C-alpha cells in the first residue's frame, strides 16, 4: 500500500460503488442462486420447486453419462494443455534464438490470439468437413476414414486440433517474453559452462522459465475447461448425441436446452469447486513467486 493516502469519509465508497453494484447483481446474486437451486427440483412447467437436498448432486455424480463426459473433459484438458504449451515453447525458444527475423516471426505467430474460439471452430469444421475438407484426403491417404460429427474419436481429434491451434499464440507470447527477460549475463555464463545446447536449455533456461510455465499451466487448464465452449458448440452443432462434449457444455445443454435447472446448477457448483481449487493453487503460487522470484 501507499505511504501517503487520502482520507475522505465518503469518496472511496462512491468510487467503488459502480463496480460493487455490478458485482453484487451479476456475480454474487447469480452465484448464490446457483447454489440454492442445486438443492431444489424445479418443476419443468414452472409450478414451483421442491427441496430435494443432495439428490441433484448424487444424481449427477452417479450418472454414467456425467462420468464419461468428465473423463473426456479431463483427457481433453490435459491434451490441449500439454500440446499447446509444448509447441508454443518450441516456437518461442527458436524465435528467441534466431538473430534475423525474430520480430517478424513473433508477429506471424501471435496474431491468431485475436481469433474467437467459435470462429476457429468454424474454420476447423470446414477443414475436417466430409465434403470439402482437405484433411480428409490426408487421412484417407493413411487409410483413416475420418468422420467428424459421427465418429466419437474423430470429432474429439478435431476439437483438440482446433483448441490447440487457437491457444498456441497466447502461450507463445508469454514464453517469448519470459525468455527475453533472462539476463544476457546468465546466458553468456551458461554458454561457457555447457556446450550442449539441449543440456543448457534443460538445466538453466527451463528452470528460469518455470514461473511462466506454471502460470500458463493454470491458464491453459481454465482455457480448456471454459473458453473452448465456442469450439465445442460449433463442432457438435447442438447434436451432442454421440459426440464428445465438455462439462461446461453439459451445464449449458441441461440447463438451457433440457430445462433441468436443479441438475444444471449442481453441475455448476461442482465446476465452481474445481475452479476454486485451481485458483487457490495459482494464488498461493503467485505469492511464492513474489517472495523468491
Amino acid at each position, binding site marked *: 500500500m501507499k505511504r501517503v493516502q487520502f482520507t475522505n469519509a465518503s469518496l*472511496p465508497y462512491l468510487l467503488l460503488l459502480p463496480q460493487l453494484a455490478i458485482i453484487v447483481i*451479476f456475480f454474487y446474486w447469480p452465484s448464490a442462486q*446457483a447454489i440454492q437451486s442445486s438443492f431444489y427440483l424445479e418443476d419443468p412447467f414452472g409450478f414451483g420447486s421442491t427441496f430435494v437436498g443432495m439428490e441433484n448432486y448424487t444424481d449427477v455424480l452417479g450418472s454414467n453419462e456425467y462420468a464419461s463426459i468428465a473423463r473426456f473433459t479431463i483427457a481433453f484438458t490435459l491434451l490441449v494443455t500439454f500440446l499447446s504449451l509444448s509447441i508454443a515453447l518450441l516456437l518461442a525458444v527458436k524465435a528467441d534464438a534466431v538473430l534475423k527475423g525474430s520480430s517478424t516471426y513473433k508477429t506471424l505467430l*501471435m496474431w491468431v490470439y485475436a481469433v474467437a474460439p467459435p*470462429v476457429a471452430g468454424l474454420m476447423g469444421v470446414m477443414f475436417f468437413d466430409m465434403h470439402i475438407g482437405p484433411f480428409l484426403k490426408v487421412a484417407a491417404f493413411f487409410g483413416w476414414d475420418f468422420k467428424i460429427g459421427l465418429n466419437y474419436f474423430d470429432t474429439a481429434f478435431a476439437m483438440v486440433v482446433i483448441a490447440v491451434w487457437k491457444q498456441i499464440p497466447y502461450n507463445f507470447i508469454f514464453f517469448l517474453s519470459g525468455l527475453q527477460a533472462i539476463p544476457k549475463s546468465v546466458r553468456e555464463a551458461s554458454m561457457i559452462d555447457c556446450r550442449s545446447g539441449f543440456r543448457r536449455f534443460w538445466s538453466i533456461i527451463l528452470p528460469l522459465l518455470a514461473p511462466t510455465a506454471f502460470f500458463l499451466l493454470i491458464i491453459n487448464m481454465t482455457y480448456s475447461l471454459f473458453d473452448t465452449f465456442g469450439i465445442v458448440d460449433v463442432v457438435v452443432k447442438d447434436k451432442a448425441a454421440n459426440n464428445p462434449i465438455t462439462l461446461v457444455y453439459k451445464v449449458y445443454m441441461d440447463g438451457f436446452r433440457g430445462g433441468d435447472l436443479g441438475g444444471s446448477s449442481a453441475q455448476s457448483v461442482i465446476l465452481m469447486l474445481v*475452479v476454486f481449487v485451481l485458483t487457490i493453487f495459482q494464488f498461493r503460487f503467485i505469492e511464492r513467486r513474489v517472495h523468491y522470484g
Partner: protein
Amino acid sequence: MYKSKLSDHLILILGSVLMIGPVLIVFLTSTHDAVEVHRFGLMASWGDHFTETYNKVLFKEGGFTGQVTGVRMLINSLILGIGFGIGKIVLSMLAAYAIVYFRFRMGTFFFWVIFTTLLLPLEVRIMPSYEVVQQLGMLNSYSGMIVPLLASATGTFYFRQFFKSVPDELLEAARIDGAGPFKFFIDILVPTSKTMIAAIFIIMFVYGWNQYLWPMMMTNDEAHFTLVRGIKQILLVWVGSQIPEYNEAFALAVLAMLPPVLVVLIFQSWFIKGLTESDK
C-alpha cells in the same frame, strides 16, 4: 555466440505457415462461389466472386427473419467490444484508485469482495445469470450484453498492480501543491496510466468482441446479433440445405476476425506489454 541454424528457421516457418495458412485458405475460399467450393473443396487460389459475396454478406438481409445484415452485426460487435472496453476501464480505474489511494474502513473487505470474482468465470454461473438478466428485463439489449460481463475483477486487478508501481512521490508532490483527490486523479494519475489504459483497452476489446456464449443466450432477436454470434446462425441454416453457402460462411468468419486481428497487429507492442506485465 549462438549461431542460428537453418533448422530453427524451418521450424519457425512451419509454425507460421500452420498459423496463417488456414486463415488464408478460408479467405481465398470465400472469394469463390458455393457451387465451386462444393465441387472442388477448399481453395488456395483467388476466385472472382469477392465483391459479390462480400456485398451480399454485408448488405443483404439474411438470417431467419431477414432483419439483419452483416453491417448491422459488425456495428453490434463494435458496440459490444468498445462498450465492454470502456466500461471495464472506467469501473476498474475508479475501484483501483479507491483501493490503492484511500485509507478507509472496510477497504480490505471490499478488496476481497471484488477479487473473489476472479474465482468463477461467467460460464459456470451462466444459467442463474441468464435468469437475473431476464428478471431485470435486460434480454435483447446492449446493456444486458455488456454489463453482466463487467462483473469480474480482471481490470481492477491490472490497475491495482499498476497504481502500486506508480511512485509515491507523485502523490506527495501533488498534495504539497494542494491537489485534491479529483485533481490528482484527472491531472496526474490518468495521464501517467495512458499506455496501461491503451493496453487494457485492446485486451478488453478483443475479449468483448470475441464473446460467444453470453450473447448467444442473451439475444434471440436478430437485430442484436454480433458477428461471432452470427456464426451459430449460419451453422443452423446449413442443416438441411443442398449446397450450403460455404462462401458466405467463410466471408462472415473473415469479417468476424478482421477487426480484432487488426487491432492486435497495429498495437502489437502495447498489447503484448499489457498482456504479459499485468496478467500475473
